[in-house]
């Protein structure tokens, strides 16, 4: 099993920072780019971003930890996000979320021990008229039922 992401190296991190550090308010842009490359934001990137943007490490760490999107450790090979917001709740989303947890043997917010699947909550994909919905590695799926969810979980486990 190969990872979809690059492994951390400082030179690549510096390159990513240099691509964006002239933008106004670049911190989030750089954090997003780091996560896209490495699958998470590696700890050593924080002081590098701080230095490039003339910010303190505490400031960058504060931004990094404020936003739900930024991961502190690598995600599984596949990321399955299940919508937990009201429109999906109204359409039976809670039972499907519990079913995904049971199938994968992990609670939402965790990665399977074999590092294949990370199961995350998401608060609204804007697919509220075709609820319940989920997203597997950027692919959106609506009108989820038990059968479709099982197929998604099986796909993520492959």
């Amino acid at each position, binding site marked *: 099993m190969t990872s979809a992401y690059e492994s951390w190296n400082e030179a690549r991190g510096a390159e990513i920072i240099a691509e964006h550090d002239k933008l106004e308010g670049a911190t989030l842009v750089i954090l997003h780019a780091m996560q896209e490359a490495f699958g998470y934001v590696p700890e050593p990137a924080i002081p590098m971003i701080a230095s490039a943007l003339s910010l303190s490490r505490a400031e960058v760490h504060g931004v990094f930890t404020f936003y739900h999107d930024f991961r502190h450790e690598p995600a599984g090979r596949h990321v399955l996000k299940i919508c937990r917001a009201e*429109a999906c709740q109204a359409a039976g989303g809670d039972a499907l979320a519990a079913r995904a947890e049971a199938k994968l043997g992990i609670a939402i917010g965790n990665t399977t021990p074999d590092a294949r699947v990370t199961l995350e909550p998401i608060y609204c994909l804007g697919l509220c008229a*075709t609820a319940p919905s989920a997203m597997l590695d950027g692919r959106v799926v*609506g009108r989820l039922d038990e059968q479709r969810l099982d197929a998604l979980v099986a796909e993520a486990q492959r």
Partner: protein
Amino acid sequence: MTMRIFVSRDAGAVAVGADDVARALEQAAIKSGIAIEIVRTGSRGLYWLEPMIEVATSQGRVAFGPVSAADAASVFDAITAGSPHPLRLGLTEEIPWLKRQTRLTFARCGVIDPRSVGDYRAHDGYKGLERALTLTSDEILADVTASGLRGRGGAGFPTGIKWKTVAQTSADRKYIVCNADEGDSGTFADRMIMEGDPFVVIEGMTIAGIAVGATKGYIYIRSEYPHAVAAMNAAIAVARRTGYLGERIVGSNHTFDLEVRVGAGAYVCGEETSLLESLEGRRGIVRAKPPLPAHKGLFGRPTVINNVLSFAAIPFILAGGAKAYADFGMGRSRGTMPIQLAGNILHGGLFETAFGVTLGELIDDIGGGTFTGRPVRAVQVGGPLGAYFPRALFDTPFDYEAFAARDGLIGHGGIVVFDDSVDMAKQARFAMEFCAVESCGKCTPCRIGSTRGVETIDKIIRGERTSENLAVVEDLCNTMKFGSLCALGGFTPYPVMSALKHFREDFGPAPATLQAAE
């Protein structure tokens, strides 16, 4: 002539298989040797019929839906043979659900190719900008004011006044910011218009830039909307290439350019000052007002910050439609509102109509009740910070003031329908929990109040000292409502208190004394 077939590329359609349908149609065409062109449009917003496909005929477009990939070949045969098909819906424009709408903002959504500026122009696009370029700043502001447009993000502040304030504030730089952090569950109008008609957002923001003297704009889109991010970026690139963004816009002396920024999963960033902090690269901590963003906004400069739908309403208004726009609606709610019907609803989707339609018409008549077939018990209007209404309040007209008078809000126009299996104590708990997780932490009522709220509702659910704990919840709600800096802490009491008020039976037995009094 090549047959033109339209298939939505809207995320809501793709989520139920539109890409597979498009591929299957292509294969069917190859197999039969008939030349077709598949145009990927936005969605018409009739989501229960997605994937819906349309074919151009001499009478207009004819729709089929919901079409699965397995249906594609038989639908294609029916199209080419002109024979009947069970999924044939007739002329799209004649579908009653669409026909009874008043589509001003969403006129082109689902009709045009969202990546083609030529298509946009062929459907009245850029007429607003062309006229704005012949007007003075004051004349543009007069049109916006005359239209009666109020901020569609939820607060309903008059757009004309906001723009005028920025226009009158002098500074070395000004900004236009589009709030596309549509985090409310049950809302998807911003997503739809960005994916289905992105140029209307670009045009609206460009007109704002010209009106107030700003040359740079940002669109802050939530990360949960990757399709919208891609659609806006593609449209911005086209607009730059064709002279609609950049220096000397369409040969005028005006400069205006746009950049998309992506959020990072913080609900509170939909609050305008928090969004500005986030755009500046900081934690999304709410700012105290004053100063207003119109005076000191992004990077301390005067800033127009409006919702996607507010900007998207502008081109129609500037294309000579200010009075026509204001003629729709009721009271102080002028124009049309793109209402979003969601959750457990039979006919969910985007319904743009003049203000004044009642909640009951929207749920029962237009929405067709629940898809589970069970009775509607509660509807949440206006997202996670909106009130839950019972059937007894279904006569409430869709209007900012009418909802406020009944302790609710229309917010961004989303309606989430729940059937009779809903547990309202659980929903009240969720509202507090959501606030606790999403609170930026700046003000105490929101940060602490929501956590205490969860703990206290848990006690009520466990049946511990119900009446005392209900009093604590009410007290917490009052503190949050009147003591919070922004709408997150300030409005979380709406779902909580409305659940308590209208669905008291879900919170355990009523106190013995009250029972005796009855």
